[in-house]
């Protein structure tokens, strides 16, 4: 009764609109098919993409990492991360290399809102923080993030260009991408032979057996895929329609999931046949149950977690080193093998041998990646409206 519930670790994805991405990308094409996981930068067919007049960004400078011996680097670093990420496995490269740096996690967030609120109100004065795509524009607009000198990152060249572009605004690099994954529908093939559209989540045929993620922006994103709406311009009518549909889904099914363990337990007890899920749930369930991870015709969704340096942090140099080591191989492997999340270190992804994980990350099927969707930036008004819609749907479902 005194505990707080589980909230999802990452919200709906966002990415610069295609035009901005391609405009800011270097001449080395972002759609190079040979670099896994080259996240495709195409958007759903019906999205009207308006090219901006962003100038092409100048190419990045040559890598020029510091050569100070690690043992001579001393200091304190504070990190504002999601609960659980203080686990040394998630920064093992930094931990092993810089023995004289003291890393602290003074406060933990449980949602992007937490992290944003903490940095914005100044209640959190950590040097480094970990938001997800969908929430990045606010930090840049409000001057809360430092520009990152990528020439000092020796691991920067292992990051695919499309990922780099996610953290770039106005041709300045503000964020270093770190973890990523898909959102799609995971389902039991013994109950549902095949799912090839997001509309399956609304299908009354599966009433009582669908588990949706408890997240407003996530729900609106799914609705926009199903109906082919422009996510940058969801109208009030469209939002109302989404609310009606989701209220019906909530009424017809017992519950939603706030944390992956809930979803996994739901599948294992046999109650859940299909659910909105990240690939980590798929990888966890695959050994035990006949599962499939859908490739909907509207395209999967993808999200990326990034690290930024708080503006005004006195430990810029240390923070940069921390970010660099976050991209390290051991850290990446921990992320992939223990938690089934993707890393932006492309070498690590290319080196995956486990067949379950290969399936989870669709390493062998580039066509999936090519029509994976990224949602555009959320404005504060949109975010509030979408959260309000979901809240109202839940209230209506409970009455």
């Amino acid at each position, binding site marked *: 009764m005194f505990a707080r519930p589980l909230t999802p670790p990452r919200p709906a994805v966002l990415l610069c609109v295609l035009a901005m991405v391609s405009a800011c990308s270097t001449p080395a094409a972002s759609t190079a098919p040979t670099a896994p996981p080259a996240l495709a930068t195409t958007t759903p067919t019906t999205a009207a993409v308006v090219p901006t007049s962003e100038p092409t960004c100048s190419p990045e400078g040559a890598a020029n990492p510091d050569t100070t011996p690690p043992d001579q680097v001393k200091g304190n670093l504070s990190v504002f991360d999601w609960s659980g990420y203080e686990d040394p496995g998630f920064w093992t490269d930094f931990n092993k290399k810089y023995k004289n740096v003291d890393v602290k996690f003074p406060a933990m967030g449980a949602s992007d809102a937490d992290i944003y609120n903490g940095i*914005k*109100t100044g209640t959190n004065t950590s040097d480094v923080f970990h938001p997800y795509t969908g929430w990045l524009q606010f930090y840049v607009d409000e001057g809360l993030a430092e520009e990152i000198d990528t020439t000092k990152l020796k691991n920067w060249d292992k990051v695919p260009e499309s990922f780099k572009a996610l953290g770039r605004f106005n041709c300045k690099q503000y964020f270093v991408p770190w973890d990523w994954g898909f959102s799609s529908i995971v389902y039991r093939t013994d109950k549902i032979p095949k799912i090839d559209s997001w509309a399956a989540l609304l299908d009354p045929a599966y009433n009582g057996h669908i588990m949706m993620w408890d997240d407003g922006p996530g729900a609106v994103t799914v609705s926009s895929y199903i109906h082919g709406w422009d996510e940058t311009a969801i109208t009030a009518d469209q939002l109302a329609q989404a609310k009606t549909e989701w209220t019906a889904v909530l009424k017809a099914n017992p519950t939603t999931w706030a944390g992956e363990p809930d979803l996994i337990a739901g599948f294992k*007890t046999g109650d859940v046949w299909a659910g909105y899920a990240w690939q980590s749930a798929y990888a966890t369930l695959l050994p035990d149950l006949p599962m499939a991870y859908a490739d909907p015709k509207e395209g999967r969704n993808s999200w990326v977690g990034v690290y930024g340096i708080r503006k005004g942090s006195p430990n810029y140099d240390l923070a940069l080193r921390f970010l660099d080591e976050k991209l390290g191989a051991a850290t990446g492997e921990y992320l992939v093998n223990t938690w089934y999340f993707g890393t932006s270190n492309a070498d690590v992804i290319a080196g995956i041998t486990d067949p379950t994980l290969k399936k989870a990350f669709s390493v062998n099927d580039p066509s999936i990646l090519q029509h994976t969707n990224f949602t555009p930036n959320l404005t504060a008004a949109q975010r509030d409206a979408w959260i309000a819609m979901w*809240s*109202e749907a839940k209230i209506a479902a409970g009455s």
Partner: protein
Amino acid sequence: MIRRGSGRTTDPRRRTFLGLALPATLALTLFLVAPLVLMVTLSFRPELTSDLLGPFAPTLKHYEQAASVGGSWQLLQTSAVMAFVVAIVATALAYPIAYFLAFRAGSKAGLYLILLLVPFWTSYLLRVMAWKLMLGNAGVINSVLVGTGIIDQPLTALLYSRATVVVTLIYVWIPFATLPILAVLGRIDVRLHDAAADLYASPFQQFRRVTLPLSLPGLAAAFLMVFIPTIGEYVTPLLVGGNAGIMFGNVIQDYFTKSANWPLGSALSVIMLGVTLVLVVVGLRVVKPRRLLGQ
């Protein structure tokens, strides 16, 4: 009451009064009143900023928005009703436990009481997850019922419903509700029972005429202790209520954790606080605590 006059000019206990009152008042003002005042002012701020003590232009837009969220009033009412049911039943069921501990357990009463409370030193989150295992469609209860042939299909309403929330809350609150009742029962002089028995009162009459009236302050305390926080409860509905068992507290929690809209969350909290205060005032008028508290 001690009739030695008020704590004003001539009361020799004045120094004690100050010694008692100052720390309590200071603590409450600094750490309860000030934060709440700050929160109320936050609900009138146009948006969240880094300067929380500075001036701002007050606005009512968050309250307008809160009022316009469809169905929320009804949800608030439903939550209050649920809280009321939980409080009444939990207090009623706690009474026999407290009675048992006070009059029947003898020297083992302390031990039995601790036995009752030890589960609360296990994580509530985990305990409720285990509770879900018992209530689910493939859970222990359903497996037993279906397996023995009492029913054909598992009872789906055991989990993820409003009833689940109410039952779980009652179950969780009973041990806590026992404490104030026990504290009061403990001071009932057992000789009063003997006297009643000597006067040929049946056990039931003894209970109704002696024990029950003397324990009313404890019952009132227990009821309030359960009723008031349960109106704002959100964890249990989130864990076992599913889509049907949502309570008003969940709405507030959503706004504080999923959105950056703290001013709106504050406005919702102020509304709920207001309603709860009204309920408490009304309730206190009905129950007449001054008489209960012997004033």
